[in-house]
């Protein structure tokens, strides 16, 4: 429940930020609204426990912004080549993380980072299928992901 | 200012009508959607056009200093958009159900209310 409360605070702050007035009345109102918002998703809110690691999430976010810029740059380089010859492929990435939220984060990060795009997660949640825009060596890509993102995610959420 | 938009509106109407004159219910609906836009643009243009200045009053004034876009047509169009959207949604689902039950997308094959071979009226007394 504490986590719920936490995220509610978070929503209240978001509200205040959006409306641009941090007066207590507005925060209070934001809290009420946030409560309303959470009420809608009370069933799914089991996952909110992870928000307790809010701090580390910031760090992760930074990494991920950097990666995003890189990947965008890479796309730019690819598409501006006079002749595009790539070896795309869909690889099966064996997941270590097993919680919905972790999987989700990982999948999103992968999508937003260079040359990879999560297509699907296997029913047993053991495998993440990733489309790579250019995979001369699939294993290299897999390791790359393992060492950069999955590790980060694990240390953020465990 | 208006000319370009006016011509565009004409095009909108033409396309809308052309689509509505299709025998295919779905294309008719696309036509109706476009017709809605055409009408909205028409009302909007009737209030005369001016570039960019929205009808908002700055937070430190009671009446705007600069000339603003005509707000009334905007309000009317807003109402019209909402209404045409509601009707569009309804007709869409209606078409869907009609297709389900009558098994036809070609409106000329929808002949249950007015059967092809209609009974002739009774004679005699």
């Amino acid at each position, binding site marked *: 429940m504490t986590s719920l409360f936490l995220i509610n605070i978070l929503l209240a702050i978001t509200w205040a930020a959006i409306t641009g007035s941090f007066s207590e009345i507005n925060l209070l109102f934001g809290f009420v609204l946030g409560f309303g918002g959470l009420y809608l998703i009370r069933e799914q809110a089991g996952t909110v426990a992870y928000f307790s690691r809010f701090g580390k999430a910031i760090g992760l976010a930074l990494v991920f912004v950097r990666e995003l810029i890189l990947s965008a740059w890479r796309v730019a380089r690819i598409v501006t080549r006079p002749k595009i010859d790539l070896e795309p492929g869909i690889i099966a990435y064996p997941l270590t993380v097993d919680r919905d939220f972790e999987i989700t984060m990982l999948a999103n990060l992968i999508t937003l980072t260079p040359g990879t795009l999560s297509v699907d997660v296997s029913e047993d949640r053991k495998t993440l299928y990733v489309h790579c825009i250019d995979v001369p060596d699939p294993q290299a890509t897999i390791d790359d992901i393992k060492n950069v993102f999955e590790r980060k995610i694990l240390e953020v959420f465990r | 200012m208006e000319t370009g938009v006016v011509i565009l509106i004409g095009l909108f109407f033409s396309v809308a009508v052309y689509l509505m004159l299709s025998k295919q219910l779905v294309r008719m609906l696309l036509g109706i959607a476009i017709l809605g836009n055409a009408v909205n643009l*028409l*009302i909007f243009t009737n209030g005369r056009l001016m570039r960019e200045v929205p009808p908002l009053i700055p937070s430190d004034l009671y009446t705007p200093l600069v000339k603003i876009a005509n707000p009334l047509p905007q309000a009317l169009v807003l109402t019209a958009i909402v209404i045409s959207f509601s*009707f569009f949604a309804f007709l869409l689902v209606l078409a869907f159900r009609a297709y389900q039950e009558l098994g036809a997308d070609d409106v000329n094959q929808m002949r249950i209310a007015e059967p092809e071979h209609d*009974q002739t009226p009774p004679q005699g007394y």
Partner: protein
Amino acid sequence: MAGSSVSVDYSVAMATAPVAVADWLIVAPSLITILGGALCLMLRKNTDLQPKLGIGFLALLVLANFGLLIRVLDHGVITMVMGSWLPPFGIAFTVDALSATLSLIGSIIALCAGFYATVSVDSSGRRYGFYPFLLLLMTGVCGAFLTGDIFNLYVWFEVLLIASYGLLILGNDRIQLDGAVKYGVLNLIGTNLFLIATGLLYGILGTLNMADIAVKVAALENPASGTLATVAALYFLAFAMKAAAFPVNFWLPASYHTPNVVVSAVFAGLLTKVGVYALIRVFVMLLPSSRGYMADVIALVAIATLLTGALGALAQSEVRRILGYLVIAGIGSMLAGVAVGSTLALSGAIFYAVHSMIVMTALYMACGIMKLLGGSYNLRELGGLYQRSAVFAAVFLILGFAVSGLPPFSGFWPKIMLVDAAFSDGRSWLAAAILFSGFLTTLAMGRVWIYAFWRGGPEGTPDGQAVAVAGPKSASLNGAAVWLPLGVLTALIVYFGLQPEWMLQLSTRGASGVVEPLGYLRSVFGDQ
């Protein structure tokens, strides 16, 4: 900073004079129906409570409209400006004899339908909103009759249109879906034309308030200028579609026989008449000169409509479809009034509108009873109803003669007024068409009568013999629910036939109100 902190002269922007409580009657119909509709919609799943609620609100509506009419007769034209914003800026509801009369009759019809529906609409129909639809349909109808703002009129048109969709598809029978597609698309086109015309009119005059429009159009040095002419023509087409006039009447015969019979009854009573009302209001009051130079066209349309309707009625073997065409024929008569445009003609049209509203509704209800008694809507399968119920037979005969315009029933008076007006306007052909259409209608209804009532049984019954009628006397025939509404409407028809004076005065007053809209303008702008 709050607006209150500056000093503005409210009196230049808002009506500051206190509003008499009785003037809230102007908005009462809209309020009652919206609140009632919303309430019924909230309690949608309580199918037992719904009819009680619905009928209650409809009864309130009738009372309100009655009060409104009284008020109008006492005080002349009355206006309420919504939000107190001075006309032409805010939306004004301006009620004259014409609006009040039609609004009252319409609400009476709705109430009757509400009663009738307790039998003919099942729990599924109630669950999926019969009463909300009916109430909000009335919001649209009354709003359309009472409003004094052209765009607002458009909004009410849409309200009653969407409500009518809901009623039309209630039950989702295949035939209904088919009818609804045609009804839906064609009517949507009609209202879009209305909207286009209104947009253009705003572009020309820069105003939406009807009284203001009337003033500005009158002020134009050339009221027949091209753009205005186009606008007028567009309005005519839009309202003609709404009114199901030839040659844009397709939607009506394609759909009116498809829904639950009580829905047909409501439609027949209300929908097309709103179109006619709008035609009168806009053409006679707002764009008189346009009406002037379009008179011949309108007359032509009227004649064509009269004949289409009457011939169509003769061509059917399904009673509800016959009635659908009779609705159209009636519209022809009203258009004739608009074509001539004199006070006499218009009062004839108004009287006829009232008559047609009542009689068509009653006929469809009778049709429903026919089905309950005889087990079919088809003339080939009907028969022997005369033995089945002499009272019902009498009622149907009265309705049949009334719709044919035979004396001494309500249809007779407007008919002679219209013929008279047509003759004095030198439009003998129009007069002839009215009479001939009446003749064909007599023939059509006579045929219905001899087949469904006098003949001993369905087609093929041996001559001189009576066979047991198909439909077993349905339980739903017991109790007042079906008979009371039909009785009330028939009584009105006979009353207006035997005692036409009141309606005559009312319609004359309504007509002169639109021909000479001075009272209307005064009521909106005050004495200037």
